[in-house]
């Protein structure tokens, strides 16, 4: 497979530039602070009138608008990874609070109010953003991947395969998510997944992730269809998915599924482990997750340089695979492999060549990992233009 990335856009805490982040972009949010979360990584985006009270929809719309030109007559597909951010503060206020009486939840009253007062809540329609944006593009195919934190990476891989097969001529692929609201924070607080201090992947003191939000979109085309005006930012040359088949909330402790996805990506790209110059890790900063990923990377790819962006832009959940791949595209022209913002003291127990600081080196092939609850894993390989 050799699919050209002819345009890319990103919206995340570090801004809109397609360059790896170099510092932490955390800010303070009152709702998060009240729940004991010291920082969130918020993106800047104007609300899109098509998606009221839905930051993830606005983020996707803004990212797509930047790159949405389509060659005349091309068959277009839109492949979007989305996430759990379906219950916004406004919906919470409207749907739930008024229906709690004396500590009990009146479900019938809520259903009655929904039927009479309001349209269907968005949480029943995760595909709505894909449909609205797909219709604007004139897309003949729309797919909404909902694979937890692997969703965007899986969408990009499915889009690349669809272009390769000839299902579509141009694919817009990526992901969007925002859980920067009370219920979003809460979801991870009750699981104990968020850091009570700050995001620091691979650190000896790591204690959870910094939560972020964002969106990123790529435009994918076949090499044979490129015009002289097209500028190639990178080539998607392979990808692989797997399932841990172990536990829906915990990764396999030795990173079995992660390793399997990376091996499949290598095979798909017809590459050897030594061909990979840099790994953009999933690297959330959770004690178990980082350890499992480092084991897997070392087992499959040896001492390849590894770093994570999540200490800087936060974990953008379902968008992570797209946001981080888009930021990786800036590595090719820079001649610099990025470090790991937030990392202070590398955990000596981790068996991987983790980059704390940026190093000057060329990258020809980059592998990007995304792993999700449910045990879904996805690895993508992108080649320099």
């Amino acid at each position: 497979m050799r699919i050209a990335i002819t345009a890319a856009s990103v919206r995340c805490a570090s801004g809109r530039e397609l360059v790896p982040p170099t510092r932490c972009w955390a800010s303070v949010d009152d709702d998060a602070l009240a729940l004991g979360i010291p920082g969130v990584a918020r993106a800047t985006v104007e609300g899109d009138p098509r998606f009221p009270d839905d930051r993830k929809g606005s983020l996707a719309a803004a990212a797509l608008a930047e790159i949405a030109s389509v060659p005349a007559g091309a068959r277009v597909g839109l492949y979007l990874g989305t996430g759990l951010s379906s219950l916004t503060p406004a919906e919470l206020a409207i749907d739930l609070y008024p229906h709690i009486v004396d500590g009990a939840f009146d479900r019938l009253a809520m259903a009655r109010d929904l039927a009479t007062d309001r349209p269907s809540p968005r949480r029943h329609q995760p595909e709505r953003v894909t449909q609205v944006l797909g219709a604007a593009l004139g897309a003949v195919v729309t797919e909404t991947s909902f694979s937890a934190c692997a969703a965007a990476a899986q969408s990009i891989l499915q889009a690349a395969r669809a272009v390769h097969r000839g299902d579509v001529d141009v694919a817009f692929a990526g992901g969007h998510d925002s859980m920067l609201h009370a219920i979003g924070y809460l979801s991870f607080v009750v699981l104990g997944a968020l850091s009570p201090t700050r995001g620091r992947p691979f650190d000896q003191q790591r204690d959870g992730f910094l939560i972020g939000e964002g969106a990123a979109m790529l435009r994918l085309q076949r090499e044979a269809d490129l015009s002289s005006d097209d500028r190639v930012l990178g080539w998607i040359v392979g990808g692989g998915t797997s399932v841990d088949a172990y536990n829906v909330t915990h990764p396999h402790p030795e990173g079995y599924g992660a390793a399997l996805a990376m091996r499949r990506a290598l095979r798909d790209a017809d590459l050897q482990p030594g061909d990979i110059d840099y790994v953009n890790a999933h690297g959330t900063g959770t004690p178990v997750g980082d350890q499992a990923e480092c084991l897997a990377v070392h087992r499959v790819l040896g001492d390849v340089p590894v770093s994570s962006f999540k200490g800087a832009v936060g974990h953008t959940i379902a968008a992570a695979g797209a946001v981080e791949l888009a930021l990786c595209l800036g590595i090719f022209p820079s001649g610099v492999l990025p470090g790991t913002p937030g990392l202070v003291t590398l955990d000596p127990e981790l068996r991987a060549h983790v980059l704390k600081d940026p190093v000057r080196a060329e990258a020809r092939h980059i592998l990007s990992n995304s792993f999700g609850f449910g045990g879904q894993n996805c690895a993508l390989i992108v080649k320099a233009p």
Partner: protein
Amino acid sequence: MPRHVRIIGASLFCPAGIGIFGLGPASPGAVPGFDPIACGVPRKHLKTMTRAVQLGVAGVNAALAVAPGWAEIRPERRGLFVGASPQAGDAEDLAAALAAAGGDPGRFAREGVSLIPPLWLVKGLSNNVLGYASAQHDLRGDNGNWCDGQLGGAIALAQAVHAIAEGRVDLAIAGGADALLGAESVVGGPCAEGAAFIVLVAGERGDAVVTAGIPSEDGVEEGFGALGAAAVPVAWVRSWLTDRRADVGGVRGAWSS
């Protein structure tokens, strides 16, 4: 060169019944007699599964139960492709915490959070059918989970066909599950629940052949009302079991021997 794809198993849970009993007239409602434990859903996981997830895991179990030889295929070559709807964590699980908070985020943090079941988020994961069923049957291969309303089940079927044809897996289980009962006021019409899965393997010329085009909602049976992500798989399997051929949701199957 793409490989031929053949079907070796199927399951059906719909308001008309389970298995071949599900071939009766389509009507809205619940799956009669559905017992997740009897359908092989692990008792220890029931509390963290919504009804739709229970139906989905049961659907995978039933499809594999009638598929000969699947267990001989290596786990790394077994794929699972699912259409699902978001399973918003049960709102009732939040009620005590919200009541304790009285709308004050600070009180919510101090007094409310500890009243929420820790696995509230986990119960709400939309890819729980995939997560639980893959762990139960050691399905470690290529995979995907789509939440696209009725289209989700069609995408799952089509992607499974591609995965076999392109040699990424040697076994693909594909289908969808949903449970929309109780959502009538939201959906604006009658609703149903159900699940259906098919089991695909690489075949030889002359076998029953399955091919995939662009996923669509074509062929969905309106008689069930809203069946969500299960709509296309249920219609596909009912068509297949009835006529040994199906052309639903952009996925075509024909018995050619």
